[in-house]
């Protein structure tokens, strides 16, 4: 520890602290622009100059290390004179037209110029004008306002992992710009808007939407990925204007993914449903709630009477709230059916009977910083979990060694020490090799169910290397990604991964696809526990007579949208509870009940680490849409079912969470015992590898216009390795017809050597690839 005196106050700070950090701990404000606690030190703005005893000139607090016995004055005459001098320089070329700047009212330069700026400008020369840049659909520029603090540059390089912005030219001609003809395409790009201390980088979708002081700030939780980023939703006139991060060091830190930030644009989409609707004689008519609810209740009653309760099933989106998930399963169970599921893209449920809890990350998110080994299995990691990937990226800088097994790799912008890229069917073999290598290395006995499978494999160089890496770590983790969970043999992948975790003393967990991937289990929205209930695949295969669909886009949210459509077609009644309509919904549903999206309802999301986060509505429900929990309650009451006579949402919560609102840790469990089948032999057929693109993953993000204009939302291509491309006689750029068991599509072929040989990467959750049905299986390709 070091002793320092700041503005007369004595304090002790850890070795290596800067004067800025020391000042912050005692609440002494040092004006600054370029300094940011999450970015490297640039010391370029010079706003933070302070007086230091014995130093001949003022020193920048952000970059000056504390030395023992140092004395600092942050507001002495010398310091303030220096700060004012710098402020004058910052303003000479800066437009002085804050009233027409989108940052006005929330600008650090504006705020600080009040305290440090002069009344009149001494600069009488011509001001600099800097051309604006096209940074893509999310970030708007006004580069004349830029003060060259390079926060945005450092963010792209250090946090997003890819230098997409730089400072070109020198001196007064210095300009921040992207690479020639490039935009900023990172899935974290919106953070540069928050970081920019001036109005140079602002939100394009929001642009001039409101002034900062006109909006109220309400807390919320992101409904998208399994991290559960904390949000500040800015609201004016009952409409969401903007979404900003609510800092939570244990989850999103001070960041948001672009999906978290810009999805709100979908809330006012033209596909919002605002009144209950009934299909009568093939025509949709709007109706009142009572009629709609009675229609639903009558329909369910008559299906039950004619076909038995087992002919009724409910399928819910994993982005639904905990209360919605709970009530929908209670409704179905109340009717006497066990058919309920929320794991819509999952295809292998053989682990279900062994699951004793909700699969979860197996560790707190904040602990990622302490990992030194990580093995990621089946994950489009960076796009599926942008901010968890960001944490791993930072941990990798401190020595975390990442290994990964995938059928297709993207550039994660972080070092991957060992990677295995094999077709989906070969993933099991690959894991068997790692298991065997680990057993050999650690001298530990294999659990019996793996002995047979492992007997037939010989570890190769990379599996040995992964085994070495994992077993030499002090804190290792093995994670299953969304792809692994959706895999056709997910249960065995899970078991192998669990064995790898056991043999290497690593923490083992599941990343989780959605905001409530853990919550769905906690709510009981699964046919678990030896019940006779059907899982999603069974419900679609042996079609039921009545379906309740909660928050689902029929075409995009299932692992096999074609199977889902035909199941709906053969059902007598399809009840859709959703905030949005889609063409498919209108085609296949009989009743549509408008439910409120996350901004218009109270609810809880349980994130990947098992943290239950509740949120309140931030605006009124649009039109006649109503919170899902209320609608489900009324349906339950109308049906005369038990347990639906509660008044408040808290009554529902108390059945699921502890008095403090927490998930009982014993409900989280990753352990399964699965019989390992024979390992698949190498297939000569081309296999489909389907990622779920980041902005296509859920009903809200896929309707956000700005997100749909990003590079991440471009139309799916048929991506093949150059070897496979050559073998099939195809070339990049040509249109190919791809055919699966259920249908065909034409897509542009593209070379991508991140894809395993013998595979074609064809994204799911997109209208172009929707006719292909299953996210897995054999695909044939031919030139058109």
């Amino acid at each position, binding site marked *: 520890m070091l002793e320092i005196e700041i503005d007369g106050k004595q304090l002790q700070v850890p070795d290596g602290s800067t004067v800025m950090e020391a000042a912050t701990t005692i609440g002494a404000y040092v004006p600054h622009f370029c300094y940011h606690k999450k970015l490297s030190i640039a010391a370029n*703005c010079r706003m933070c100059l302070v007086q230091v005893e014995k130093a001949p000139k003022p020193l920048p607090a952000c970059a000056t290390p504390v030395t023992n016995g140092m004395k600092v004055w942050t507001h002495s005459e010398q310091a303030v004179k220096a700060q004012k001098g710098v402020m004058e320089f910052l303003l000479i*070329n800066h437009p002085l037209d804050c009233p027409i700047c989108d940052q006005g009212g929330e600008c650090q330069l504006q705020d600080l110029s009040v305290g440090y700026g002069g009344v009149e400008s001494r600069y009488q020369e011509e001001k600099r004008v800097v051309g604006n840049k096209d940074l893509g659909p999310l970030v708007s520029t006004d580069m004349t306002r830029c003060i060259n603090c390079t926060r945005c540059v450092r963010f792209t390089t250090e946090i997003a992992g890819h230098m997409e912005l730089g400072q070109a030219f020198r*001196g007064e001609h210095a300009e921040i710009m992207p690479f020639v003809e490039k935009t900023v395409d990172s899935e974290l790009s919106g953070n540069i808007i928050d970081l920019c201390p001036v109005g140079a980088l602002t939100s394009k979708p929001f642009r001039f939407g409101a002034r900062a002081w006109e909006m109220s700030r309400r807390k919320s939780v992101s409904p998208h990925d399994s991290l559960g980023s904390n949000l500040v939703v800015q609201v004016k006139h009952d409409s969401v204007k903007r979404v900003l991060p609510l800092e939570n060091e244990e989850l999103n830190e001070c960041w948001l993914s672009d999906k978290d930030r810009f999805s709100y644009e979908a809330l006012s989409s033209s596909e919002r449903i605002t009144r209950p609707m009934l299909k009568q004689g093939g025509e949709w008519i709007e109706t009142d709630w009572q009629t709609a609810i009675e229609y639903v209740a009558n329909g369910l009653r008559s299906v039950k009477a004619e076909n038995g309760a087992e002919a009724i099933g409910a399928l819910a989106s994993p982005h639904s709230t905990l209360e919605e998930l709970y009530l929908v399963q209670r409704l179905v169970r109340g009717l006497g059916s066990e058919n309920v599921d929320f794991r819509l893209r999952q295809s292998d449920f053989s682990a279900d009977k062994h699951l004793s809890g909700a699969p979860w990350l197996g560790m707190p998110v904040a602990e990622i910083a302490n990992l030194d080994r990580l093995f990621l299995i089946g994950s489009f990691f960076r796009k599926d979990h942008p901010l968890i990937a960001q944490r791993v990226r930072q941990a990798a800088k401190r020595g975390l060694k990442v290994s990964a097994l995938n059928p297709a790799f993207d550039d994660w912008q972080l070092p991957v020490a060992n990677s295995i890229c094999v077709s989906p069917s070969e993933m099991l073999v690959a894991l068997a090799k790692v298991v065997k290598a680990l057993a050999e290395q650690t001298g530990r006995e294999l659990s019996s169910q793996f002995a047979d499978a492992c007997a037939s494999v010989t570890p190769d160089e990379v599996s040995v290397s992964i085994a070495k890496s994992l077993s030499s770590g002090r804190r290792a983790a093995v994670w299953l990604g969304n792809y692994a969970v959706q895999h056709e043999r997910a249960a065995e992948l899970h078991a192998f991964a669990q064995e790898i975790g056991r043999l290497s003393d690593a923490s083992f967990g599941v990343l989780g696809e959605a905001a409530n991937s853990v919550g769905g289990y906690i709510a009981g929205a699964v046919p678990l526990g030896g019940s006779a209930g059907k899982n999603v695949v069974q419900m679609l295969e042996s079609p039921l007579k009545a379906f309740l669909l909660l928050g689902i886009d029929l075409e995009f949210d299932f692992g096999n949208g074609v199977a889902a459509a035909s199941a709906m077609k053969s059902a007598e009644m399809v009840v859709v509870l959703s905030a949005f309509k889609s063409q498919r919904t209108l085609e296949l549903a009989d009743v549509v009940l408008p439910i409120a999206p996350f901004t218009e309802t109270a609810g809880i999301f349980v994130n990947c680490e098992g943290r239950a986060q509740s949120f309140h509505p931030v605006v009124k429900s649009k039109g006649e849409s109503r919170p899902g929990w209320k609608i489900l309650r009324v349906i339950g009451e109308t049906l005369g079912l038990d347990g639906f006579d509660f008044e408040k949402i808290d009554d529902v919560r108390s059945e699921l969470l502890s008095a403090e609102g927490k998930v009982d840790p014993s409900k989280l469990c990753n352990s399964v015992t699965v019989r390992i089948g024979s390992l698949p032999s190498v297939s000569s057929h081309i296999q489909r590898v389907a990622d779920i693109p980041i902005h296509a993953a859920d009903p809200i993000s896929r309707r956000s216009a700005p997100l749909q204009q990003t590079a991440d939302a471009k139309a799916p291509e048929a991506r093949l390795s150059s070897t496979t491309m050559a073998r099939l006689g195809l070339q990049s750029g040509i249109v190919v017809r791809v055919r699966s068991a259920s249908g065909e599509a034409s897509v542009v072929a593209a070379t991508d050597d991140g894809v395993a040989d013998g595979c074609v990467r064809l994204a799911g959750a997109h209208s172009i690839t929707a006719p292909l049905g299953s996210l897995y299986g054999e695909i044939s390709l031919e030139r058109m």
Partner: protein
Amino acid sequence: MGCERGYNYIHGEIFEVYDRFEEALREAREAGLLGKSILGSDFSFDLFAHHGYGAYICGEETALLESIEGKKGQPRFKPPFPASFGLYGKPTTINNTETFASIPYIIREGGDAFLALGKPNNGGTKLFSVSGHVNKPGNYEIPLGTPFSELLELAGGVRGGRKLKAVIPGGSSAPVLPGAVMLDCTMDYDSISKAGSMLGSGAVIVMDESTCMVKALERLSYFYFEESCGQCTPCREGTGWLYRVVHRIEHGLGRPDDLDLLNSVTANIMGRTICALGDAASMPVQSFIKHFSDEFAFHIEHKKCLVPKDIQRDGSKIYVA
């Protein structure tokens, strides 16, 4: 010191020196004086020439390191100093090539012999690059302590027999001194510093009476305006401000309070930047105004030069010839 790698960073616009140095390296390698196990010892050392792209700022030691690493030539904030975190993060010693070149002599002949070459407290010899209004511009190596008049004589004296007006004794960033002051100086650190300037790089710029000091300063200020790396606020914004005001004065648009403004702006730059270029841009402005305020005042008041245009033209005619 145990280092195994050395780099000689050579300004990008200078080819002859670069080629000559590469040739010298080749000879040294052939003679077994560079590379692995030099002369059969267990000492290995390799030296490389690194040709920059011509940015002045890349002479600043940490910008130089960035440049060698293939990055944009921008000075680093210090600490950490290169001695602990230098090239590619390795401890690094940086000196001018001339500094290194004097080491063999010191090792061979001893420190006292080196000191005896100059005058007390200013040991050794130094290279001076004399440019400007002299008959024989060029590089001259002289013992420190040699009178300036002797150096001027070596350089062939002031052109056209004109009167010496001013001298910048240590490179463009050193404060300018009036000719009369310089003629009383000896060329060493103490004497020049006592006179109010610095020996700096040893680039001696000689100006005769045909020089308009406002125009000369305009040229210097333009140089710093163009050569600022743009990283830190006072220098990026300040060098443009200085240049524009001096440019205005030179072009007859000066205002009465411009000189105060220039002094105040330079004061706001100095000591507040990442590297010394901010100071380097400020010192000429301050010293030109200090020693030649009458010329600046004349310019502002009369919208023209104190030095008649024909005399200026005459001066530059010889310069061209």
